[in-house]
């Protein structure tokens, strides 16, 4: 597609429930990133996918968080047993080559855990 697409744009969930957030990167972009932005804060790296390489999961805050990327395209970020501190905007970005080109971010999913 023309841009990075994320869904849903907003998600309200009850504490303890699982949620899945989806990211459709720009077609052909091999690098895909998930970031999190809490209210009034900067961006926090979560996970990075590059082609068929093992993902860099070093930013995932706990084992309740996981992500997969199927077929080198669409990615799903899953948060199990959500907690109120998980409330944030979850942003996805993709790049054709992060060493040469910039990153393009999606509009994000605003997650609210009540």
């Amino acid at each position, binding site marked *: 597609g023309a841009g990075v697409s994320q869904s849903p744009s907003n998600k309200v969930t009850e504490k303890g429930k699982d949620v899945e957030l989806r990211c459709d990167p720009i077609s052909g972009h091999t690098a895909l990133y998930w970031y999190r932005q809490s209210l009034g804060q900067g961006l926090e*790296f979560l996970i*990075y996918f590059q082609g068929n390489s093992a993902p860099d999961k070093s930013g995932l805050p706990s084992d309740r968080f996981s992500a997969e990327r199927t077929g080198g395209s669409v990615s799903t970020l899953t948060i199990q047993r959500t907690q109120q501190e998980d409330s944030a905007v979850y942003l996805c970005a993709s790049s054709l080559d992060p060493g040469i080109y910039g990153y393009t971010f999606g509009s994000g999913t605003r997650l609210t855990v009540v």
Partner: protein
Amino acid sequence: GIQVEQSPPDLILQEGANSTLRCNFSDSVNNLQWFHQNPWGQLINLFYIPSGTKQNGRLSATTVATERYSLLYISSSQTTDSGVYFCAARDFMEYGNKLVFGAGTILRVKS
């Protein structure tokens, strides 16, 4: 890992004024970007500028990689320029890994 520092933390401008935002980074980088986050939360890529100077309309940016800083210039500011400006860099030694974001500069342009 690298550290990215932005200044000033916030800035209030009268419409029509010019401003310069600064980004310092602690180590060699191979990716330096400026983003504008509008009041609706959308992150807009302004410049990919690991070195040199680029201009786009009223905005321009310069990165001096050897001195580890980048500047974003906003001329003839407009109320629509309001929002948060982030600088982000990738550690040269960490291929493919995370962009490190600065804390941002909150810009408010008053009419």
